[in-house]
């Protein structure tokens, strides 16, 4: 845990702009991947259900 906090502080101290963009990017991407993986399944199910209902 200490190593992670130290790593984050180093990223923000050493060229803070690109350190901050990289941190936000990795945090955002990890979170969105999990969220989209869960919500995307529901989207596929409802899409296929609507297409089935639509057919003659």
């Amino acid at each position: 845990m200490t190593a992670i906090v130290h790593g984050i502080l180093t990223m923000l101290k050493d060229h803070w702009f690109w350190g901050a963009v990289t941190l936000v990017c990795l945090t955002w991407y990890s979170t969105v991947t999990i969220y989209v993986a869960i919500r995307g399944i529901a989207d596929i199910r409802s899409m296929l259900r609507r297409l089935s209902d639509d057919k003659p």
Partner: protein
Amino acid sequence: MTSLTVLDGGIIGIYLLITMIAGVAIRRYVRRVEDFIVAGREMNVYLGIASLAATEFGIVTCMYAAQNGFDKGFAGAVPGLLTFGAMFLVGVTGFCIKPLRDSGVMTIPELFEKKYGPRVRWAAGVVIVLGGLLNMGVFLRMGGDFLVNVAHLDPDYLEAMMTALLVGVAVYTILGGMLSVLVTDFLQFVVMSAGLIITTFLILGKVGWGPLVRAVETHHGAGGFNPFANPTMGWPYVIFNALLNTAATLTWQTQIARVLAAKDSATGRKVYTRTSFFFVARWLIPGIWGIAALALLTPEQVPQNSLLAMPRMLGMILPAGLMGLLIAAMLAADMSTDASYMLTWSSVIYNDILAPFRRTKWSEKKGLFWNRTIVALIGVFLLIYGLWYKIEGDAWTYLGITGTIYLASMSTLLVACCYWKRANNWGATAAIVFGAILPVTVLVLQKLGPWTAWVKDNEASCMIGVYAVTAISMVVGSLLKPQSQGCSEGGKS
């Protein structure tokens, strides 16, 4: 150096099997042309995000973004920040994409017919298809080069390996169209994202942020962090990339296909807004891999072509298991890109280029047959042009031409179509002609004659000029047409 183990092979095999089964199983939901081209317009937000992100990240993207990191440092990720800005603003405001989706068309040229008439629709279709097909012509070989370098495979197997991959992708795209593409894109997004995130954490853990920053400082100085201080970038590079990425956000066929497949324009806008930050990741993550190659490879290990530095570095540091995940992730990235490119460009050929042959309405069965045939023919083209035919010269320049030929004119036509009453077919024709001729002229001058050095040094400024002249052509052409003739062809102009 890590070679593929049984564990790696197992991970790759399971991923490919699941993708193929899912892609082929979806075919039973395809009954109409609208299902095939725009998924029956039933795509919701999260599926749209997964599909857009998976499509817009291929091995080619990874290679070039990493090369930018290697050659330009962190500043090389600036195109990602610009794309994020463009896509976020377009998503929030609905600029062009709202009227486009609300119009109910299946392709951009179909919208153009309402404003500029059938000839412009046809010409726009031809430009889009030419630009797009030539652009995607380099994908397969680049993908093969990455896999060969990262997994230390025998280069002799490159053609056979990528042919097998393309055939697999073509099978589910031909059978299931956009529905199969969306479902497989979802699987590919999950696998691709897991591979990208885990590999990046591994690199940050093994190399460390400090050494990455130090490597950029040593090799690129302040220009490695600030594009305006970088001698190979500067204001023209940033402005050109802002124009290029905004135009791509508005008209690039694979991106706009997600808006057109969305349930409604509000869903399409949400997909754009919520996917926009992915474009930062799309450039920064491979960029960090490229910087890691800069930090880790000795001068003797750096290949002559800096494009191959990143895969070579990955081949050195990835452990067994993770190598399998990375290759599965990159295959996922490439498959989703290939499938979507084949489908979305075939939809323009069917919907717009073949429009004059469909004066009498075709049956759904006949329409589906032709759509599937066109996807198959594009697959054959990709195989011959992209794999068995070796492109000579600089691939970046090649992508630059093919992209700008299409993007400058189509974005101008779309903006004018949506927001300028006086825009008409004279202006549209002038924009298409100048938008196609000028980038080709710049590239010819770059290769020949006394202008070579000047054009090479001012490439970004020349491309800004292409966008400016294309827009001016639209304005001048439209104003030159007598207003009494305005309604003769386009109907609404």
